[in-house]
């Protein structure tokens, strides 16, 4: 009886670890940094805005991981999409830049998906290869040069602008979470993603076209990464080949801490949002605490290990 209770309690903790962890981290920084500007609206808003691209990528990855696949190429997609959009917008209106950026993400996702679905290659290897491939494309696209974005409309919508007084990056985050959650939980597509990741054989025999679904989630992930690229380009008012380079591990950490299973079948869009905010808050708070860079890395690593340990530990059978 006591054992059952303990197991139930652990299961509950696992499920909500990211929310509890996030609150604990917030509380900790609020106390330690109470007079160092941490709790100001501006700083908290900064955290949400800074994590917007990570959140958007994390939502795409929730679908991919739930379907039992992985997408390692997102960092390179960010750079290629942002650069392409910036280059197009030198001469063309913002709408074409956005289309070029998102289109590039969709095409790269399509390439990943086709290789996985129709050549039956493991997504880990395919996207590892395209990660390198498109990092190279990003570097050659503008010969390593940064491209400024001077289109105010674009910079407003994707970067520093406001909609009804709400910063546009907050709007994008909210939109991505709401739409992502709806598709993940409330549609047949979402249900099929879960079923495929949980038990591909069973999903296939119940009539789900699992290869097409694998292609679908990788295209979705590519487009999410492309949108993240546009958000970076808007915020920085320019694009550079290094954009997104270091984001992959942060995104994976955010998604896993947020309760999505690495081997498929289970996940959470809200969890990914909170996971992403947790990463952003950690970065922010540890800097404000005045820690040295090495100390920041150690502290962040330890906290992620603890969170992942609690959220991933399978109950003993």
């Amino acid at each position: 009886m006591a054992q059952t209770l303990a197991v139930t309690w652990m299961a509950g903790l696992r499920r909500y670890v990211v929310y509890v962890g996030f609150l604990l981290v917030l509380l900790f920084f609020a106390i330690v940094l109470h007079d160092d500007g941490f709790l100001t609206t501006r700083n908290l808003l900064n955290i949400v805005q800074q994590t917007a691209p990570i959140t958007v990528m994390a939502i795409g990855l929730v679908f991919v991981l739930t379907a039992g696949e992985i997408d390692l190429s997102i960092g390179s997609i960010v750079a290629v999409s942002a650069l392409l959009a910036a280059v197009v917008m030198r001469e063309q209106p913002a709408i074409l830049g956005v289309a070029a950026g998102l289109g590039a993400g969709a095409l790269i996702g399509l390439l990943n998906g086709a290789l996985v679905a129709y050549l039956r290659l493991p997504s880990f290897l395919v996207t590892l290869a395209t990660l390198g491939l498109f990092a190279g494309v990003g570097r050659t696209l503008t010969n390593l040069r940064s491209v400024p974005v001077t289109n105010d409309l674009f910079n407003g919508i994707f970067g520093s602008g406001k909609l009804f007084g709400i910063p546009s990056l907050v709007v994008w985050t909210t939109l991505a979470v709401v739409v992502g959650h709806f598709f993940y939980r409330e549609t047949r597509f979402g249900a099929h993603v879960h079923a495929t990741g949980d038990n591909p054989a069973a999903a296939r025999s119940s009539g789900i076209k699992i290869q097409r679904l694998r292609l679908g989630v990788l295209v979705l992930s590519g487009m999410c990464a492309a949108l993240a690229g546009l958000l970076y380009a808007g915020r920085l008012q320019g694009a550079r080949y290094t954009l997104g380079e270091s984001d992959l591990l942060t995104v994976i950490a955010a998604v896993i801490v947020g309760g999505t299973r690495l081997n498929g079948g289970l996940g959470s869009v809200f969890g990914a949002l909170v996971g992403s905010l947790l990463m952003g808050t950690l970065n922010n708070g540890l800097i404000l605490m005045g820690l040295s860079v090495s100390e920041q890395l150690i502290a962040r690593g330890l906290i992620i290990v603890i969170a992942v340990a609690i959220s991933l530990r399978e109950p003993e059978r």
Partner: protein
Amino acid sequence: MYSKQVLTTAIAAALTLSAGAVAQETVGPNGEAATPSTEIALTSAELEQVKGGNHTAALLWHTSSDFTNAVTAGARDEFERLGIEVVAVTDAGFDSARQQTDVETVMARNPSVILSLPLDPVSSAVAFRDAREAGVSLVFLSNVPNGYEQGTDYVTIVTDDLFQMGKQAADALAASLGGKGKVAWIFHDAAYYVTNQRDNAFKTTIEKDYPNIEIVDSQGISDPARAEEIANALLLKTPDLDGVYATWAEPAEGVLAALRASGNDHTKVVTLDLSEPVALDMVKDGNVTAIIADEAYELGRAMATAGAYGLLDKAAPPFVVAPALTVQKANVNEGYQRSLRRDAPDSILKALN
């Protein structure tokens, strides 16, 4: 707009890796003449004035390395002397987006001074906007955001004498080769102002000053872990290679690994920035003939003092350089002292005795 174009052109020129576009001395991004860092100093009255101001500072670095550690140490010591508290130190990992995040984050602590290396002139113009508008005393290392005006938007740019570093590398390698031979040039294949200027200065100097030295191979590198492969390929193509220039110490370590593996004790290596394995090879009479270092500690000191100029509204020269330093076996300990303000590592001191 005009100055923005000039700046973009200047940076682009530095990045195209074309020797012809490179100046013969270190100049600022807008062509400013260089002032030696030793001229950046406060009077005792100014020192007292800064001390009483309850000021704070943040150090927003582009990466973490021995170099940034030494700059940080120089800045911290100087800030302590000036009674300025360091409230945050960050590392953007060469990521412009992260740098913007770092600026926004530390602005919550309202620092009076920010020392930073803007990673990219385009995006850092936006990244530092909040700090600029808040009137923070901004001192930049090596690079400047597009459209920022010296004296109003930032105090000054402080940097290594980048051209001298590359030139001294060329001079040291040429001296060890007796002024003739075949050399390979391993340059940093990335849009990074600092390494680009140093690399090009090496190339220009060899081409201009040493007619009997031929650069037989040029190879770009972006991932230092690949240096060994690159060096192996160079040696395969030119087995009698006399010298190699490696853009900084980490790739030089890969070059040394390749030379050692093939039992090559003929090819001389020159590189930039102090590193224990490279310096050890040098003092053991291995392949390394010289390491060109910068006075990183002095850079940090000069930046911190320049930060105080900003607080006092004292006019600063627009472009400040700290000297370059050729470190060879004979002066290795002195080199560590001048560059990093510490003794050479034990392994090197032992090998010397």
